[in-house]
Every structure is written in C-alpha cells, then in structure tokens.
C-alpha cells in the first residue's frame, strides 16, 4: 500500500484521502493561487487570506461529499468568489480599501520596476471599479483560464450572462486601463 496521492477520482488509483490529508495537499497546491485570486477580486491581501482560509475550512467540512481533489478545487474557487463578494459588501473592507492607496503586500516589491508597480496598481484599481459580476467573470476567464461553462457553474449564472459580462467587462477594463496607463504600457 503506497501513501494515497492527490489525483482525481477518475485517475488510476482509488482515491483514499481523508479530509485532513486532502486539506493539507490542497493547501500545499492551491493556497497561494487562491489567495491571489481573492486579491484580484478584493484588492486587499489581508481580506483575501481571510476569505481563502474560510473557504478551506468550508471545504474540509464538505469533504465527505466532495471526496475528489478536482471537485474540491472547484468548490474552493466557488467559495472564494462567493465569500469575496460578501466581504466586499462588508463595510470594513470598503473602508480599508478607501484608506489605502496601494494594495497590501504589493507596494514594496523591491525588484519590480516602477512601471510594473504602476501597472499592477492600475490593473487592481481598474478591476475594483468594475461591477462585481464583470470583475468575477473577467478574473475567472483570464486568470483562472476557466471555460464559459465552468464560469457559469462557478457563479451560478447562465452562459449568456457570462458572455455579456465578459464582453462589457473587458471593454470597460481596457478603457479604464487606457486612461490610467500611458500608451505603450499595455
């Protein structure tokens, strides 16, 4: 008997993961990526870590019905998106956001040229100013590389809505970024 490994239940090995092991493995593989996803949605690293931690706790509690790392990852993404949306409604986040000129943890990247730093800030600011659904669709589409069907499932909306949000969102984002960045930066 070899140690159970993190592969899909559709894989060759029988999935033999308990909730704790699944939690540890999913954490090792996806903690950073999911926090980054939440940063794109929230623009606040502290809040992003909170939301992502909550998502992992929720996933652990649901492991009995998930039982599959791929399903668990889909669940984690969905939960991160949903809880980010809730967190944005929370006044504290909004206030912290308003009080802060630059996103936490991004401002002091010593090796990043100024141009890149400005562009990062511009992208996060622009995303933050989009309507929630547009921001979510764009991030799922371009950052996570999800298909229209997967985005529709993650957000619980129709494929048509995904299309509409994507096209309006990307037009709005490009407009915002063109305003914020000098020509040639994009």
């Amino acid at each position, binding site marked *: 008997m070899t140690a159970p490994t993190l592969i899909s239940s559709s894989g060759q090995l029988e999935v033999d993961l308990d909730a704790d092991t699944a939690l540890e493995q999913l954490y090792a593989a996806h903690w950073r990526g999911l926090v980054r996803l939440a940063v794109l949605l929230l623009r606040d690293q502290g809040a992003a870590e909170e939301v992502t931690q909550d998502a992992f706790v929720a996933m652990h509690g649901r492991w009995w019905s998930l*039982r599959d790392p791929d399903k668990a990852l889909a669940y984690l993404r969905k939960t991160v998106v949903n809880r980010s949306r809730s967190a944005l409604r929370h006044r504290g986040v909004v206030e912290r956001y308003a009080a802060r000129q630059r996103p936490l943890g991004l401002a002091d990247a010593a090796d990043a040229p100024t141009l890149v730093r400005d562009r990062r800030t511009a992208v996060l600011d622009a995303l933050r100013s989009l309507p929630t659904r547009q921001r979510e669709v764009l991030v799922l589409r*371009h950052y996570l590389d999800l298909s229209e069907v997967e985005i529709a499932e993650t957000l619980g909306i129709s494929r048509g809505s995904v299309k509409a949000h994507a096209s309006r969102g990307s037009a709005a984002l490009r407009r915002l970024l063109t305003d914020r960045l000098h020509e040639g930066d994009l």
Partner: protein
Amino acid sequence: MDDLATLFKEAVEDVEPRDRRAELREAVAVAGRRRLRHTVTGGLLAAAVVVTGVAVTVHRTDHHDQTEPTGPPRAIDRSRDNRPAYALYYLGKTPQGPRLYREFRPGPGPDMTPASSLSLMQEQPDDPDYRTMWPAGTFSDAQVVNDVIDVEVADPASVGHRLDGMSPAEAELSVDQVIYTVQAAVQEELSVQFTHDGSPLAQVLDVPTSEPLARGESVDVLALASISNPSERRVVEGYFSADGQASSFEGAVPWELRDSNDAVVKHGTAQTYGYGDRLYPWATGRIDVSDLAPGDYEFVVMTADPSGGAEGSGPMVDTRTIIIK
C-alpha cells in the same frame, strides 16, 4: 496567453500570502468539534471518518488505523507519510553548467521548519537528474534568530573546503542550494549564517561565510525554465494548463508535449512579459488533449535559443510526466 491574462498574473505575482496552516488546522478542529460534540476524541482524523461515514471507511485500510496518534486531539493526522510539499533545491545539469532546480516533496510533518527542510534536502532527490553534493548529516539544525537563518554545521572541518570532485561553481551553487531551501521553508528572504556551536563559520566549501549571506541572483542560480504546474504524474482529462517561471530570450517559452515514443504531439510558445533581469511567470492557457490516446506523456518547457542551436549551448529544459486519461 492574452493580454488581460498577462496583466492579471502580473498584478498578483508578488503576492506571497502568509502561511496560515496553523490557523487553518485550529479552525478546522474547532469546526469539527462543533459538528461532532459527542464524538470520542482521538484526533480530527477520527472525526473525519465519522463525518465521511461509510464512503471513506470502505476505502480505508487497516494500514491507516494502526498508528492513530495518542495525546491531545490534533487537527491533523501525523501518522501518515503524506504531508504538504516542501520546496527543496537541488543541483541539475544545464548546457550552461550546474543550476538549481526545485523539487516538491512531502515532508515528515506538517510543521515545516528550516531544519526539517534541510534534513530532507540532505537525502537524495526523487528526480534522478537532480543531485545534492552535501554529505548526509552535514547540517544538524537551522533556525531563525533575529531575522537571520542560522544553519548549524555539525562538523565544520569536513565541509570547510571544496569536497573531492567538486568544482568552484558547484561549491557556490551548493551554498545557494542551502540558502534557497531554508528561505523557502521560512517563506522569507532572510539572510543565512552558517554556524557551529552558535559561532559564525569563516568558510564553507571555500566560500567565505563569516557574514550572513544573501541568496544569489535568481537568473544566475536557478534553471531559467521551470514548471510549477502540472505536478509530476498529474492525471488529466480533456485538457490541462501549465505554468511556471522562465527567463528566456524575448520572453518566448517554447513548450512541447511528447508521447512515449518521444514524438512531439503538441507544441506552442508561452510568453513572459520580461526576461533577462529575473524569472517571470509564464502560462500556456488551456491545452486541449481530448484528441490524444490515454497514456503517459512528457510535458517539456525550454528556454528559447535565438541562435537556433548554432552557438552550441542549447536550451535549459524542465519536464513533467502527465497521464492522459
């Protein structure tokens, strides 16, 4: 990769979240106790079994039940050799001489420390292409003291000078191997002091070490094309995406998917938005493999070679095996 994907990845690539495993374990344990107020203790593993019920129990084997930890309830079962991955660095060959490659391996326990990371690093790596030149037992401890990682050398006389058969480049790279590995364990770029009995060592492998050392520049030390995802022997169905880091001419990062006969069945080029001064993230986007027969394939990334091989040095390469279902 489209421009928005590049901008989004760039916008968060420097976000290094705090390690929250301790809080997570505590939160999970609290949630578990809330769900299972009447369950006999014995760790959250036991709690998880009750929650998951028959579904998991039928997959469990006796093997797992023999070493149930005793003592206070813990959020995480420590009895299994199946732990979060440690990032360990090893020497590997490239056309431009030795470089460091990163290997993820399960650690001995959930509490990743620079000491446990170093003790793993002194074992042989899983990948036969990688190696470590440090004799087993060279390092006896490592800990953070006043924002410096102190690495305790057990027998300074044995590693004060270059070892037999070790080139100066390999000696310097071996020192960086230790620095990169312990920094990965503490997830901070703290400088590293080699010590014995708490006192700084003047030199290790003929490298001056009396002052705390910073890590070597990534473009001078690391392999210039590396894969973060997929992990080794990842099972994929329909499609997969790959990403990693590279510093490659004009930001072009060619990739290939090769079948078991080494024939290239898919290929493409990922793009980074910079190169030369450091490693930049690359991502392939979705690679459709629904038309490929099931089996083992090798995913390969490499640095671009503007001379087309004419200069004879050849690209730096990293590979992963994936299993297409």
